[in-house]
């Protein structure tokens, strides 16, 4: 029936929201929805075809055809809305992970986003992720002093206790160089290590 595929897609979109990582896109489902929409459009065209040439044979007098037309019309719009909603949901997830600094971005240049979302992006989405990262960097560049991608938790203390979860090498602070080796613990300025906490190298201790 019309709209079944779109319904499934929406169910997927709803489930995606509660998943920790983005699942692979439903390419087959999307393709079938597009095919359905196109076939509906051709139905509309054949229905309307004779009417446009000869107004007297207008389908307006045929209630059956009118209902068919309306159904096709409504189903196409619904399909479009469902696809938009599905794509939007995914795009928001991608944008969110770009804001969070795109964990795993550093591992391999192109398609670096794979680390963040388990390589489950369609080629178009990867394009989007890359370009959004550029856009974000451009917007952020205007607010260098504030660091827009920083923590959204209100700062409580200037210094925090952190434990090193993975070797992160040396970092420079105004109090000298700190060598972050695994399992060591430091009392450092939060601003200096914000990035590393976000990337999962360090863990903040309560």
């Amino acid at each position, binding site marked *: 029936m019309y709209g079944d595929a779109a319904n499934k897609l929406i169910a997927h979109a709803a489930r995606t929201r509660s998943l920790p990582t983005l699942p692979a896109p439903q390419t087959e489902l999307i393709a079938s929805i597009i095919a359905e*929409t196109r076939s509906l459009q051709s139905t509309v065209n054949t229905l309307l075809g004779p009417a446009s040439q000869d107004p007297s044979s207008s389908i307006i007098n045929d209630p059956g055809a009118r209902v068919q037309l309306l159904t096709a019309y409504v189903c196409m719009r619904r399909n479009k*809305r469902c696809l938009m909603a599905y794509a939007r949901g995914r795009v928001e997830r991608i944008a969110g992970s770009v804001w969070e600094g795109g964990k795993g971005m550093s591992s391999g240049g192109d398609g670096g986003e794979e680390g963040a979302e388990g390589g489950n992006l369609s080629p178009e989405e990867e394009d989007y992720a890359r370009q959004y990262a550029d856009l974000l960097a451009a917007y952020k560049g205007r607010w260098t002093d504030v660091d827009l991608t920083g923590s959204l938790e209100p700062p409580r203390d200037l210094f925090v206790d952190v434990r090193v979860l993975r070797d992160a090498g040396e970092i420079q602070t105004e109090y000298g160089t700190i060598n972050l080796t695994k399992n060591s613990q430091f009392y450092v300025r939060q601003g200096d290590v914000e990035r590393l906490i976000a990337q999962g190298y360090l863990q903040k201790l309560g």
Partner: protein
Amino acid sequence: MDIDDILAEVDRAGVPQEARDLQSLTRLWVAERVAPEMQPYPEDLMERVLDRIAKQIEAIEEEAGNMDPKTSFKLVVVQTELERFKFLVRSFLRARIAKLDAHPHYYSSGTPYTFLSASERQYLSAHQALLARHYAASFLSQFPHSLQRLDDSAGGVNMVDVPDVDKAVICRVLKDNVGVVAVEGTDVRCDMERGDVWVIRWSAIKERVMAGDLELI
């Protein structure tokens, strides 16, 4: 004008610009976080605040080499304050961006568009173009031509989502003689007195919040 007004007048005059800026920024930040709609971008205020942040960073860098315990203690205080200011600005801007991304079409024209700062406008149009390209590449280009628009309102359903201006917000009355606020479409009339706290629809008090008669909490 009674004694309270005179006292309030004196109070206002006695508070330095910096403190007032902090207060208004905090107010705007809270409003931006709870109100369903975006508010005008405070150009002058942001400029002053960013200017001061830049100066503070400079001052800290100058003092950083100083090992005198007294100055380093002062430095810690200043740095803490700086971090808080940065947080305020960051959270404020992020709240605005989040709203922008939630309802991009709504903000790209008319009055809402005038509320954006120059860089927010750039961000909006760039992001819109990016999204349009992405949707087109993903599936929309394979759709029948009549269905390819992103702001379609045919068929009785408008594709453009708008913020829910009737969302309830909690506000506090800041000034005397705010008068009676009527909620559109209902019989509710609120006689607002200074210091009162009300739960009310955003659409009913929007203008008064922007005028500074009320603050959101």
